[in-house]
């Protein structure tokens, strides 16, 4: 199963502990935040993938670890607020200045690609092209 889901991003206490402790470039942070929580039935229907590729409407994508849980209704996914989730957050602010951190439509599909660390993802996606 591949489909369009509504992405909810938000805090987890371990994400908070690691971010506030200056540990964003560590393996612990990747394990905690480079994840996509799915509705259990959706996860099973997708074949219980180890990793999924999440793609936004504007074409940005990120590969993260996947797991199923009973916390969400079908059609919704949750990712901790961190660099991985924000790659696929819709940048439209609806004239408010605040992007759609909650409720962005995303495509989720199984993937065999590697999950990148925050450092690797920054280097890959945001390659320096400095002007001036």
């Amino acid at each position, binding site marked *: 199963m591949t489909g369009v889901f*509504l992405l*909810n991003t*938000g*805090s*987890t*206490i*371990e994400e*908070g*502990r*690691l*971010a*506030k*402790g*200056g*540990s*964003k*470039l560590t393996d612990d942070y990747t394990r905690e935040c480079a994840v996509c929580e799915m509705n259990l039935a959706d996860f099973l229907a997708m074949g219980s993938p180890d990793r999924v590729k999440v793609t*936004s409407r*504007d074409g*940005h994508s990120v590969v993260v670890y996947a797991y199923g849980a*009973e*916390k*969400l*209704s079908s059609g*919704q996914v*949750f990712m901790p*607020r*961190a*660099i991985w989730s*924000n*790659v*696929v*957050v*819709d*940048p439209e*602010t*609806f*004239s*408010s*200045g*605040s*992007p*759609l*951190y*909650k*409720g962005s439509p995303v495509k989720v599909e199984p993937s065999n690609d590697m999950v990148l660390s*925050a*450092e690797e*993802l*920054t*280097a890959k*996606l*945001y*390659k*320096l*092209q*400095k*002007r*001036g």
Partner: protein
Amino acid sequence: MVTKNIVCPVCGASCDDIQVELEGQGLTVRNACKMGNAKFQEVVSPHRIKEPLVRVDGDLRRASWDEAIEMTARILANSERPLLFMGSETSTEAMEVGIHMAEFLGGIADSNSTVCHGPTTMGIQEAGRVGATAGQSKSRADLTVYWGSNPLESMPRHMSRYAVYPRGYWTQRGRFDRTVICVDPRRSITAENADLHIQLNPNTDYELLSALLTLLHGKRPHQTAEEVTGVSISEMEKMLDMMKSCSFGAIYVGLGIASSYGKHRNAELAFNLVKELNSHTKFVIGALRGHCNVAGFNQIASYLYGFPFGLDFARGYPRYNPGEYTAVDVLRDRDVDAAFILSADLVSHFPAACSEYLAQIPVACIDIAPCPTTMISDVVLPGVIDAMECDGTFYRLDDVPIYFQPFTSSPFSFTESNVDTMNQIFKRVKRIKGK
């Protein structure tokens, strides 16, 4: 020696009862939550940024303080339209220098408060707000509603310190005298601990608030409200009955309101619902603010320049138009040509389109630890940790100013605080501009 009553510089709770004992390279912290303790340990952390870094031939290398200040000032002075972004875990005094610098340069001043509760602030501008200090809610509230918020993971001591568990003057049995409702599409840990969990569909806060207002007006919402929100009308009635029959109700909205589809209109409707609930009982509403001083930017920007966030000084006077002069929008639309970032990790927490552009323009930042934003910056200035190494002011989640004092001093010889660093940059910018 144990130092008491230290203010925690992490979330909007700005807890002021932290005890610390610093002995050599060991730091013992009492009363702080997991997030707070992690940040306090930054004082003795091995990964702390201790030296200025500047980019030379594509790589960051160590530099002298004077060289780094000069390069930061030149980035700002040479820019036609710089973005000065003020993070929220530093003092209002440091933010104030940044806003004045944006005015001097004709740039844009913005802050985390925009991507945090900017839409909620716009809702207040539309509807007004019935509010209370955290102490009032602690003493009086017998009903607490967490709407689109998950304090057990984002503001861990909110329930134990202000809203649910503490024994107040009129709530002497603590949790036993209070009822908790949680409105969240996800069965979060806060929802599991609530007496009633309203599990609405994502992006339907506006519809649910409208249905509650309809019920409050004595009418029945259209039946499609159930399908749209995923909440039965009988559940809505149950929730509203609990709200009308309490003695003092407090709603704490989170980013579930501000970040979902509907944005400031969700917030506006929530404020209107609370206003009307006051015809039946006492009800207040406030935002769970993410950082210890995210409310501070709104406060000082409002009283200095008349607008709470997203200030554009291109014409020499402040202009405010969310969606046009706000940080995410100017980066997404490539409408600035340089950025200065104080104590914030925009590359991690802004959408990809914004981070891509930050990697293309000159950027200077102040930070305490390596992160994606320091990776793409041209200048990295070591940050001083507010409330631990210098004094200043935070505005708590309920907009109460909290003056904080340090338990140690700046580890640097070249700066005493982020205010000091900001003033040094501003002075250099003025010198370059010949003023």
